[in-house]
């Protein structure tokens, strides 16, 4: 049973409060998906907003054949993928500025908020260097926690391809993280 089904029906009936609930339920996930895939907080906020607007306007096309969450992620990945595929001068400038930042050198104790922020920045920066297809698969699994079958539905690829992209994505990600995390 889809846990979002009742809320989705309310939104379809024009209930703005229900849509506000839906946004509240998924805003952290969608924002972090966009942030991990783009490595840019400003872009992530804009993209996350675009996703929810598209969700609201496209609810008439959601037939309920999959869970709402799967459909949401499908819309989100398509929006973000389009954004990644069309780099603008401004996005290039932002990316250059982020590459000039100092990399993380040591892991800090879990209780250190600033260190957690720096760790996240370093991880998202490394993710941003992966090819888009691998980046999508690793992010959906390791950042968003989606099951393999759901990733397969979101990206519309076979499960075998999902597994392969996660495996290869993590393999390529390792050297990108190793320098800043001091692995041997």
């Amino acid at each position: 049973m889809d846990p979002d089904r009742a809320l989705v029906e309310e939104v379809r009936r024009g209930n703005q409060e229900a849509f506000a609930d839906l946004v509240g339920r998924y805003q952290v996930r969608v924002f972090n998906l966009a942030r991990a895939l783009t490595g840019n907080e400003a872009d992530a906020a804009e993209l996350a907003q675009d996703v929810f607007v598209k969700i609201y306007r496209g609810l008439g096309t959601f037939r309920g054949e999959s869970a709402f969450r799967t459909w949401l992620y499908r819309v989100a990945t398509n929006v973000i993928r389009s954004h990644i595929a069309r780099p603008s001068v401004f996005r290039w400038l932002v990316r250059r500025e982020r590459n000039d930042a100092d990399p993380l050198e040591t892991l800090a104790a879990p209780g250190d908020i600033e260190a957690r922020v720096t760790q996240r920045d370093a991880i998202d920066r490394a993710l941003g260097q992966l090819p888009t297809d691998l980046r999508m698969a690793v992010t959906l699994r390791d950042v968003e926690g989606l099951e393999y079958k759901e990733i397969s539905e979101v990206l519309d690829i076979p499960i075998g391809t999902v597994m392969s992209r996660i495996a290869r994505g993590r393999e390529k990600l390792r050297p990108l993280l190793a320098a800043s995390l001091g692995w041997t």
Partner: protein
Amino acid sequence: MLMCDTAEALVVREADGLLAPAELAGLEAHAAGCEACRALRAANLAVKRAMALRTDAMVPSGFAPRVLACVAPGPSADWLEAVDWRRWTEWMLPVAAALLLIAGVAGNGGSTSTAANGGLSPSESSATVSEAWTLSAETESSPATSALRQDVTSDELLATMLGTRVADAEGTGNGR
């Protein structure tokens, strides 16, 4: 005997903590004889550990109200979002660049316009005309300044346009 493509899926599931003991044994046996899969396995385990340390970023404040404002019914809805200004901007930028390029090429002039001006480019020929009209400005004998003078005679004006002086034309000269 396990093949590498099968081992690949097991590597992912092992890193995600989803491998049954029998599957783990099979993977370990394969990895013992396959350097590539050993490297793949080590990378997946290491990256999974690192990714587990990633904490979620906080959503910017005011995010939900902004979203709701975009979808709110009535005239208060964001018209910029409605026309998808970002997409239009990205589409129009190449068009604008092409127009600028065409304007730049047209402004420099082609070979046909240069030949029509006796070998001068349009900018050069217009400069020559300007110079002709301003050459004698300092002596107040240019056609333009002559025409503006109220006391100029028709003979003086004609002489100025022809590049001669009335005194010369009447043979009174200046002794040259």
